[in-house]
């Protein structure tokens, strides 16, 4: 047993190799490139909308004129209900179910790497890729927003204007908050991924879950259920655009997502530990 531990590859090298493995896939690169189109399309659409009289739309779209730093936040909240859960589910589906489909998971399970460590490495890959996807949307959003709408500062929903630096801070906070929400969905997708060898099943089941949760969130008769739904926490995320920053709903949403991460990864670990080769 001790000899086996000594023979383990260093953790850093394993994590690096997992990331290289994901990034070398052509579909990863194509997927990330198409995600960059989302803020550009949203920006151009809003740019045409602000031409007319009055606000460009409801919510954040209303304050976007001359206020380019709002665009990344707007785009992230636009992508959060469907697109970003899909992205998280794709990474998670590739991680375990994809490997199982190609027959490569068997080799990993037989190799002298603990199964918990295997799950940790796979989850790390999913987590980093989700962060990369969210950050990419935000960065392209900042550039598009500043080019199309200009941006000396960031006008908040409360009517006060933050300095450019503070605005970038709010965008960084949005990136962090949205990434944690994607992690919550992706962790559940990891649990499904550990149970099947069809990546499509993982994606379909995750998206179906997200849609069902969103529908359940619409019924006021199910008020008691809403605090348990990760999708209900997403509505309060718009607090990031208020000034002074109200933190209560943001903390609550982050802790809910944290609980989903714990549940998802524990289920995945349970399944992996009992999986026969």
């Amino acid at each position, binding site marked *: 047993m001790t000899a086996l531990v000594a023979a383990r590859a260093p953790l850093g090298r394993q994590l690096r190799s997992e990331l290289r493995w994901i990034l070398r896939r052509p579909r990863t690169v194509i997927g990330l490139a198409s995600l960059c189109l989302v803020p550009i399309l949203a920006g151009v659409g809003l740019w045409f909308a602000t031409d007319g009289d*009055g*606000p460009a739309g*409801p*919510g*954040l779209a*209303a*304050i976007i*004129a*001359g*206020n380019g730093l709002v665009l990344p936040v707007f785009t992230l909240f636009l992508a959060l209900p469907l697109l970003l859960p899909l992205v998280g589910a794709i990474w998670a589906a590739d991680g375990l179910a994809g490997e199982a489909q190609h027959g490569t998971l068997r080799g990993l399970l037989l190799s002298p790497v603990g*199964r*918990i460590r295997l799950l940790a490495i796979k989850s790390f890959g999913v987590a980093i890729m989700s962060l990369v996807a969210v950050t990419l949307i935000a960065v392209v959003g900042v550039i598009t927003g500043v080019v199309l709408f200009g941006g000396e500062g960031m*006008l908040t*929903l*409360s*009517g*006060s*204007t933050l300095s450019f630096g503070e605005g970038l801070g709010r965008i960084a906070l949005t990136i962090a908050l949205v990434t944690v929400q994607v992690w919550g969905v992706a962790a559940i997708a990891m649990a499904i991924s550990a149970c099947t060898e069809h990546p499509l099943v993982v994606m379909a089941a995750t998206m179906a879950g997200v849609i069902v949760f969103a529908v359940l969130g619409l019924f006021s008769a199910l008020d*008691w259920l809403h*605090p*348990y739904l990760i999708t209900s926490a997403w509505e309060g995320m*718009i*607090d990031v655009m*208020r000034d*002074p920053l*109200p933190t*209560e709903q943001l903390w*609550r949403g982050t*802790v*809910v997502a*944290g*609980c*989903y*991460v*714990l*549940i998802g*990864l*524990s*289920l995945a*670990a*349970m399944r992996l*530990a*009992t999986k026969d080769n």
Partner: protein
Amino acid sequence: MDRRRVTVVAAAVGVVAGATGLGVLAMPAGAGPAPVLPDVSAEALVESVLNAKPAAFGGSVAVNNDLGIPALAGVPQLSDGASTVRMWSDGTGKVRVQLPGGDSERTFVDDGQTAWLWDSAAQTVVKKPHGSFEEHQPGLGDQQAAPTDPVTVSRQVVAAIQQYSDVTVDGTARVANRPAYELVLTPKPTEKTVLREVRIAVDSELRVPLRMAVLTNGTDAPAVQVGFSELNVGPQDASLFAFAPPAGAKVTEPDVEEPTADDKAAAEKALTEAKPQVIGEGWDVVVAARTPQEALADLAERQEQRAERGPQRGEGGDVDVAGLLKQLGKPVSGTWGSGTLITTRVGGVLVADDGRVVAGAVPEQVLLDAIGQVK
């Protein structure tokens, strides 16, 4: 083999911990144990509230509304359900109030000279001189303004309240993490009101109301509860009380459009003909008025004309009052005539077809009796 079992057990614990975490989050925040405070008599508590000095504070007010009235678009704080108001005050008249709603926000800032009202959904700013948004508070405010001894005045107020209500201090509570006394106003048994009691949590140190709940007959849950969920007493950041209209926003100064003498006369005529009168006393008070149909129509017509003259048509240009009433209430009739009755959990409004209106926190029958007395 053993290791695998350990992993499964640890993972099961993880699932349970995650589910428990969600459960804990879903539970409403507990109020904590009631604080121990020195005894105070109800009279002394009311007097100290009436004489309390305004303090600088910042905080959030949670509004829980269960009145049973239809939703008003754009202002969730007045509709049924839970919502939040965030407010700051520096204690000398500078105020900031924010009404977050869905994905928009209204902000009101009074910086001492100018009052600003920002609406994020419409991207508009309304600018008015300091204090003009404040409504004139009748009754209590007038008495306090009179140069008399504040202690005497508050004794009079206490006596007036006690004539119709039992005032008691019902233990203590913790509101927004501050110790508070629970002051309870209960209508005397002879009163016919639909209200069961009004509970006011009074801060033990500052003697300002921290929470107010209105309870009605037959239910445990308050019909309205307004209270601080977060309160920081002390000097607030001065930048909170400053407001600069954002570059893209449309700023309007409604004072520029002074009502003409004709308009004023029409409004006054409507008001004098309406003859507001008060029927009953104490909790059973019913406010009655007569809105002359012609005067109302005349006023509405003038508004409409003005809206057409202006650059923008006013939103309230043509309101179908009768249609709106039919939507909100149910038709009733009696020896006094016929009309529409709108009931909420805290009272009702009865609008007769001939323009008579009565309103009060009383059961339906009292309203029906009152409308017959309207001259």
